[in-house]
């Protein structure tokens, strides 16, 4: 049980034992505009869950709800609940900064800090008051991110000088250096070539024993290759604009071989989107 604030928050929802994240009747608004409606979803611990769906279906928006990164957008607000390990992430007592320490994020475009490779990884632990052996932690994180062998002789060089794939692995190392529970990945391979993509996918497989991973992807092969569970989102046009919603959520195998919904079948068959 993790604690976000001195006060304990009594919120034992009916949950499966191994649920890491849960959205309950979640509606996401930007101002008066409803972007995503009525999502109910349980994300299992130590599994890779992928969010797929056409552009504008709200999968990235939903992902950002899980670490309260959407709070940075002024007009953003939600109705409904989001839980992490039984705690309501949007309760008044919850500090978003603490949430993000537990639930890390890797972005679409590799975005290393303009600092050395070492400092990129050490930044998170430093600001979190890490007391142990920082060198060891940096090495361990870079090793976990399958980058150590490539950079161990040039830790002082700038992180921005690495190749795109290496930068993305650096960003993953930076995220896991603060030892979060969950790693959210927002199209982490969208800007990468196939070989780097493969490396990141292998890496995700290695990481899932320790972390719960949620990945947003446009690449359906990727979703079928790496994930255990897949959520398919779609978008429907309403008079007030386009609204995203969850169509189907199941084991990846079922989604790709035996989807229950016609929309899912059409999408994975490449008939739209």
């Amino acid at each position, binding site marked *: 049980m993790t604690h976000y604030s001195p006060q304990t928050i009594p919120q034992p929802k009916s949950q499966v034992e191994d649920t890491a994240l849960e959205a309950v009747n979640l509606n996401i608004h930007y101002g008066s505009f409803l972007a995503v409606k009525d999502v109910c979803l349980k994300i299992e611990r130590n599994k890779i869950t992928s969010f797929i769906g056409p552009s504008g279906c709200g999968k990235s928006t939903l992902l950002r709800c899980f670490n309260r990164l959407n709070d940075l957008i002024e007009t953003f607000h939600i109705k409904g609940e989001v839980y992490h390990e039984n705690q309501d992430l949007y309760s008044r007592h919850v500090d978003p900064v603490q949430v993000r320490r537990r639930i*890390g994020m890797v972005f679409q*475009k590799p975005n290393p800090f303009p600092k050395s490779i070492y400092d990129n990884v050490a930044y*998170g632990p430093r600001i979190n008051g890490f007391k142990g052996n920082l060198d060891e932690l940096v090495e361990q994180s870079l090793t976990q991110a399958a980058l150590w062998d490539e950079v161990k002789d040039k830790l002082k060089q700038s992180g921005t000088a690495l190749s795109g794939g290496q930068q993305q692995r650096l960003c993953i190392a930076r995220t896991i250096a603060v030892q979060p529970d969950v790693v959210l990945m927002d199209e982490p391979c969208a800007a990468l070539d196939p070989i780097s993509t493969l490396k990141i996918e292998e890496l995700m497989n290695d990481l899932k024993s320790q972390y719960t991973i949620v990945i947003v992807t446009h690449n359906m092969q990727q979703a079928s290759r790496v994930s255990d569970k897949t959520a398919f989102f779609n978008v429907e046009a309403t008079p007030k604009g386009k609204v995203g919603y969850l169509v189907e959520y199941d084991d990846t195998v079922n989604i790709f071989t035996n989807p229950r919904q016609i929309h899912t079948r059409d999408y994975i068959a490449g008939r739209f989107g």
Partner: protein
Amino acid sequence: MYLSRKSSDARSIFNKAMTILAGTLVVVALIPLLAVLSYVLIKGFGRLNLDLLTKLPPPPMVPGGGIANAIVGTLIMVGLASLISVPIGIGSAIFLSEFSNPTTAQWIRFATNVLNGVPSIILGVFAYSVLVVTTKTFSAYAGAVALSILMLPTIIRTTDEALKIVPQEIRWASLGIGAAKYQTVLQIVLPAALPTIVTGVTLAIARAAGETAPLIFTALSTQFWPNSLSQPTPSLAVLVFNFATVPFKNQQELAWAASLILVLLVLTTSIISRFALRRKTY
């Protein structure tokens, strides 16, 4: 060869004519710069020696001497003005770019632009009435305050721009691993923007060093070494103003030499800012 270019057709001729016109205008635009620089160099170079940098200006009709007190005075006042305006300016820009809401930011930016447009002589009169009249003495303090107000909008604007260039993703990345807002600003955004900020600050310093109007009313000038911040203080710009218009040849020569030193100071700061920009990340 129907694809070959005919140099005689109208398009080619127009093209050439415009290129020549644009080139000529560039030369015309550069003439004042080169003329001023070379004239200052020719007129001032003769007196460029150790005496100039170490001795006080002589009384009229006495040969020799230097402008050391004015150099020291300028350094003191510009330094003091920077101590005032750099923290305030960078702090305001950080507030503008990172913390304020868009409406407030728009008003502050507007106010900064207005301040930037206020003629420097008015800043001088303002500092005169606020600091000189009340303390009953011209002083380096008053001069520094006038110069700092002059520097403030440049620093705020360039720092604001520098912070805006830093990509949003970097801020998200920092917040995404659990950094607080202030940690993100101080440890990620500010270092990334630093080279551009340094450039802005050096430009502001260069501009302040060459200003005369705000100092005439506030620091005045003396023929002696500046020995207290609360007394009249000499400066290069005011010395040029005073000496260039007197009928004594020695003083006129010193004015040219002082101009040269001033130009060199401004040139040096520009070069420093160029070097800072080389380390730019974004």
